């Protein structure tokens, strides 16, 4: 059963067509890695799935419900099922780590304070930051901030987690700690859709890899097959450029 269904998705910025008809089905528990050159539309596709970008035509269903960008209630409902982690972390700097995690569950899901705090502490423990409950984001390293951001997204108990180049802003030595958390999520059966430049990670964790090129899904397949035998010249060139 598909948890995310995308049919004929199109989007343009002005006269620039960014997505030219994307079809994609993501099954529950599947881990999808989206790769491609910058400007290929991979981030835009990801941002369409939780409505940060509006699309112009096509259909997008999450958990069987259609995404209706103009309906405030529909978007609020949808976003409770779709978590997102950003390249630039985007923690709320005026709130402690604990409050960053507890804010949305208390406001949106009206979770009671005790249960909310227990959950936040559990999630922090899970990302290896249990001692940082009262810290502020400015006191954390990039890798720690990103792990808090993951915990914050998980606190809403999403059915799908979107990761938008979540290690691209990190120093090389901090990438590993974040990827390990993501890998553990994948192992536990979380549905993940991630835009990434970490090819080794995609190869290791993803069930399917999508290569996007000029606003289209250019090639799609299991990582072993796709990386070993790229069929199209564009993917061959893309992978070749990474190795040289």
């Amino acid at each position: 059963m598909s948890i995310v269904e995308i049919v004929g998705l199109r989007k343009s910025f002005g006269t620039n067509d960014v997505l030219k008809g994307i079809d994609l089905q993501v099954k529950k528990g599947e881990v999808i890695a989206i790769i491609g050159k910058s400007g290929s539309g991979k981030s835009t596709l990801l941002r369409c799935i939780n409505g940060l970008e509006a699309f112009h035509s096509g259909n997008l269903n999450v958990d069987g419900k259609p995404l209706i960008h103009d309906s405030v209630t529909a978007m609020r409902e949808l976003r409770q099922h779709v978590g997102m982690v950003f390249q630039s972390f985007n923690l709320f700097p005026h709130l402690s780590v604990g409050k960053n995690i507890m804010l949305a569950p208390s406001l949106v899901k009206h979770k009671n304070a005790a249960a909310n705090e227990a959950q936040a502490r559990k999630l922090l423990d899970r990302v290896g930051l249990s001692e940082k409950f009262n810290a502020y984001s400015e006191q954390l390293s990039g890798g720690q901030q990103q792990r808090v951001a993951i915990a914050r997204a998980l606190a809403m108990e999403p059915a799908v987690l979107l990761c938008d180049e979540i290690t691209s802003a990190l120093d090389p030595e901090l990438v590993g700690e974040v990827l390990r958390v993501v890998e553990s999520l994948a192992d536990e059966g979380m549905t993940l859709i991630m835009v990434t430049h970490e090819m080794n990670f995609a190869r290791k964790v993803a069930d399917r890899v999508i290569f996007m090129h000029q606003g289209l899904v250019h090639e799609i397949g299991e990582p072993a097959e796709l990386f070993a035998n790229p069929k199209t010249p564009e993917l061959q060139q893309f992978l070749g450029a990474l190795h040289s």
Partner: protein
Amino acid sequence: MMEFSFWDIVRNLLMAMRWTIGLSMIAFIGGGLVGLLLVLLRQSKSAFMNLLATTYVQIFQGIPLLVQLFLAYYGLGLFGINASPWVAASIGLTLYTSAFLCEIWRGCIASIPKGQWEASASLALSFYEQMRYIIFPQAMKIAVAPTVGFLVQVIKGTALASVIGFMELTKVSKTIANATFNPFLVFSCVALMYFLLCYPVSLYAKHLERKMHVHR
């Protein structure tokens, strides 16, 4: 002819200064409330509300405060309302202050990174919740220093209320200067008083600004 001692001059000026402070506070509180409403309209997704607020700000930023005070004073008279200088000055200064505060605050809100909006939207927060819990608390921190700094402009702006007959510091000083034939002494005292009123405020604004920078 009655003789004025130096103390008489200072005492009368100090009494008048109370009205300057009072008027400043009315302008600041009134302007703050209206400014807050305007800045909310500016953030709203309705194009009409946005245009309304923008037009308001453009108009009252584009007309000299002096002329606004004349308009408030004589304009209310046209509608058959016998406006006292108090009411006219309060309205004129509130319009002026609200327009400027709206612009200051709008700038502070605009300076909050887009990622804060996106992250809070992704967590299913409504527009009101985003504003209330994410954007406003951060924008307010940035806004404190320029807002207090603008208070200095408002205090000095109240001097213009003298032209519609409001008996604040400047108006009283003119009267005293005429009576004592010693305008330089009187206006020197007035200048000192405005300075003593404004300088601590701008010092405080500087202090707040420095504190903010250390923290971020």
